[in-house]
């Protein structure tokens, strides 16, 4: 006997009722007012089990029987509803919950760590080359308008770098992707009164060198090493990859938090930032590796790269110290936390890799294991 309520089709009014079955697969529904409905069990429609929420049986005449006695209903209708049975089985068995939790955490981790970068890379390389042009159009104008100023380098110096690039570095990239056309630009970039040493590459193959960078470099090899690093970004289509990765992260995050309140967004924003910067650290390492391999082929000592990187870091640090001394504020070291947000791998890692390739170079190897 299962206790519950009976409703006429589409009616809110209800009558207490008792539901029972016999051995022949037939049921009887006795209403409190004396009416009895009988029929085949197989003709009843039963809602899927979900936690302990009220269960509804729909009779042939459209009237419904509602009960909270889920377990009794499950026993009677054991053989029906296989698909739902599976989902409900997962939901009610502790071991499957634990498995779900572990799989969820593991998948989420691997998806963000390897899945997204891998898929993005595949997509980025499957797209036609013109996409690179498309996403960089307008970028150069934007940078010129808001960040850069005209270069103060002499025409002679610029031409020398460009000529050297054409003769020595361009041929190295022939085997990668014949469609890429590199173009060098010289600009001056400063924040406040501090000139910034930097080199950037746009997906279209435009490479920008800042005046301060050229100034800090002590020989042609150092400039070449940085140019090769930037070429690595272009060859590996990192710009496009970043864009695709960003889309993936946003969609995933949206689906996870879809039903949540807007407040969770703040935590999610922080998470997305962490994930994105970890991707771009991966890109930097990839570009480094590209540069080192090409340097062995071009007969340049990879140590040049760590030399110029060190010099740039030292310069930035010194500038920082000068400024803090001026304003008499002791700077607290909060670098460790910020490393997580840093888009570049730690300098130490990069220097180690450079040294390893430098060893190979000294041994006269063309390929380094």
């Amino acid at each position, binding site marked *: 006997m299962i206790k519950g309520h009976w409703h006429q089709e589409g009616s809110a009014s209800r009558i207490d009722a008792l539901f029972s079955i016999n051995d022949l697969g037939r049921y009887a529904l006795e209403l409190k007012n004396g009416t009895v409905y009988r029929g085949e069990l197989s003709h009843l429609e039963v809602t899927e089990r979900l936690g302990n*929420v009220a269960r*509804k049986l729909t009779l042939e005449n459209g009237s419904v029987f509602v009960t909270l006695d889920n377990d009794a209903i499950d026993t009677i209708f054991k053989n029906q509803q296989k698909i739902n049975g599976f989902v409900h089985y997962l939901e009610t068995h502790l071991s499957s919950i634990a498995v779900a939790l572990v799989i*969820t955490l593991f998948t989420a981790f691997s998806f963000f760590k390897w899945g997204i970068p891998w898929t993005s890379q595949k997509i980025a390389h499957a797209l036609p080359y013109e996409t690179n042009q498309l*996403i960089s159009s307008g970028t150069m104008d934007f940078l010129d308008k808001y960040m850069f100023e005209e270069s103060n380098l002499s025409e002679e110096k610029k031409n020398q770098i460009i000529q050297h690039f054409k003769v020595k570095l361009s041929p190295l990239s022939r085997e990668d992707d014949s469609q890429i056309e590199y173009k060098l630009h010289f600009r001056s970039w400063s924040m406040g009164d501090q000139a910034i040493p930097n080199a950037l590459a746009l997906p279209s193959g435009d490479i920008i060198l800042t005046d301060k960078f050229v100034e800090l470099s002590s020989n042609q090899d150092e400039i070449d090493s940085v140019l090769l690093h930037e070429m690595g970004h272009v060859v590996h289509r990192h710009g496009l990859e970043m864009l695709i990765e960003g*889309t993936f992260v946003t969609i995933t995050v949206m689906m996870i938090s879809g039903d949540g309140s807007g407040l969770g967004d703040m*935590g999610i924003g922080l998470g997305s930032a962490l994930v994105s910067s970890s991707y771009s650290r991966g890109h930097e390492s990839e570009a480094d590796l590209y540069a080192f391999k090409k340097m062995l082929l071009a007969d340049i000592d990879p140590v040049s790269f760590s030399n110029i990187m060190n010099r740039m870091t030292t310069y930035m640090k010194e500038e920082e110290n000068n400024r803090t001394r001026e*304003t008499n*504020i002791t700077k607290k070291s909060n670098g460790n936390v910020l490393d997580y947000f840093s888009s570049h791998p730690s300098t130490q890692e990069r220097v180690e890799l450079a040294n390893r390739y430098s060893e190979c170079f000294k041994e006269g190897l063309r390929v380094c294991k």
Partner: protein
Amino acid sequence: MESLRFTGSGSEYFKIWIVNVLLTIITLGLYYPWAKVRNRRYFYANSTLDSRNFEYHATGKQLFVGFLITMVFFIAYNLIAQVSPQGSIILLLVLFIAIPWLIWRSLMFNMRVTSFSNVYFSFEGQLGKAYINYLLYPFILLLLMYGLPAAAFFMGMDDIATAQAMGEGAVVETSAMLTTFLPIAMFVAFIVAFYFYAVIKKKNTEYVINGSRYGQGIFKTNVESKKFLMINLKTMGLSFLVMLILGVVVGILGGSDTIMMFSNPESMKHGRIPEGFALAMGIAYLIMIFAMILIMSYTMTRQRTYTYENTFLDDKISFASTLRARDFSWVMLSNLFLILVTLGLAFPWAKVRMAKLMLENTLVDTEHGFDVYLSEKQEAQSSLGEQIGDAFDVDVGVAF
């Protein structure tokens, strides 16, 4: 008056939620609509009044089409936004024009798939009115806010141009007129817009509630913009107070740095943000999140109380909300904290807590009973266009 109750529990919902997440992952997201249905079913069926429960009847299949379209649109928007700003503006414009239709459609859909005590809800508001409420009114609001000051400014500029032709003295005179007239125009525009904002709130509330049906029963609300205006005024007062406090906090913590920043904004251009100032800003930011939740809770609960006490079903069944701002903001803040420290795993408990709070503070007059209500015959939905519209699910901002 009897309050609604929530009969579910966090631990039970956790199991449903984690399995949903798992299946969504395994199916690469395709299970999402079915997961959503299970979530909704759980929360609806556990909401009870007078020991009768609500039910959610939509199927995953019904939601799937809309889910796919939303995803495609979202991906397209994301990619286009990176490539061409013009393209993304056009897409946004399309979305903007489609929003009233989406709201109308999802109101119809969501009501039609919801029942209470075996009787279905429905929505009979008109599409035209949705466009008036969710496109025309917001557009007028924008015009009021920016149109009048802009008009005053350009008229003034025009006068200066004429004055320039006339000579030096006239220019000075006219620009003096412009500087006095422009702030007045902006002030008037602000007052008018502020009032109109309350009018919109009234109209939207009426559109949603007066269009709702329970079986043959008709919901009716009779709200006045004056009351919404008062709530908004108090909200503004509170916001000013918070800004004042924030200003003082930044001033004290940032000390001389702050004064330097404001007296000499040039120093900011050189990329030097003093540490004292940064610290003060960080603390101010935290206080601001806290204060925003408090203020938002205040506005939300007051509007809810006012709307509920003026809403009736068939002129006899009345409603009330006893939700207090301090309870709402407490649950909100503690939920946020729980979710953050557990990296999201406490989400099911947070959601159940919120559902309990909302339902237990919703009162309905059950004296007349619901026995007289019958489901209205619903016309069959078949064409693809309707199916697509069916499936979109936009929140309208009138909690009910």
